[in-house]
């Protein structure tokens, strides 16, 4: 099986790769949003901590 055949999927390329593509997008979004939320929370806490430190 060569590369072109593999991507062709016997004529079902649109369906197979479409399904894998949608899955990839939705799951990556989940991971990315979770990372962003963590980053945002940490940043807010760090900012508060720095503010406190400069007050001391």
């Amino acid at each position, binding site marked *: 099986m060569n590369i072109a055949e593999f991507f062709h999927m016997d004529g079902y390329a649109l369906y197979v790769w479409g399904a894998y593509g949608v*899955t990839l997008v939705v799951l990556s979004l989940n991971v990315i949003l979770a990372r962003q*939320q963590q980053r945002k929370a*940490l940043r807010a806490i760090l900012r508060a901590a720095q503010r406190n430190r400069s007050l001391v």
Partner: protein
Amino acid sequence: MWLWIHKFGSPKYFYNVSGKILPWVAGATALLIVIGLYLGLFASPADYQQRETVRIMYIHVPSAWNSMFIYLLMAASAAIGLIWNIKLADIVAAVSAPIGASFTFITLVTGSLWGKPMWGTWWEWDARLTSELILLFLYLGYIALQSAFEDRRLAARASAVLAIVGAVNVPIIYYSVQWWNTLHQPQSLGVGMSTIHPSMLWPLLIMALGFKLLYVVILLMRTRAEVLERERNNAWVQELAQALVGKSVIGSANEYR
């Protein structure tokens, strides 16, 4: 057991332990999914009836399993939060809902993409697809109720009741939809998703395990973020922040630890 629950239920303990576990689980997830994809896309044969579209099954079926598993776990966690007043359980239930809805959505889209070449239509009122659609509605209702309350405790408790009622109803809905389907579609659809050839079982099982772990990874990440947000005024978070300020690691990879 009880001691363990209370220990693990404390946000600080959870945050520290989950931070240590997370990289390992994430690594195992990536490994399983890569192996699963290799087996599913390269090393397994095309199906006699379904041809190459059978490869959609390796993401469709694990997503479907996840979508149901996550709903039950969400309801169980919400019930624990409601009965024993464990904050962490509330958070787990709340952040599980969007993840579960994502897997349900994937199940629907991939099922539809599989159905077009196999059934000749984008949407078939097949018992399982219809049940998934209703499951998506249940998830959306839960998420909507959760976000309708401003007070977090109230949101957690009210949506816990809804999740429990939903979980009791899921089997009833499932069987009535199945019954409805056999009544209205006596003719067989020919190609079903239930017949699995043994050589296709391995990629399916590995992908299923990979997706389960992926859920755990996303769940841990989002729970950790929520814990930080909700506990931001507690001493241990302040200590954590002070330590990070000392090292000044903003923007580096270390901040996820």
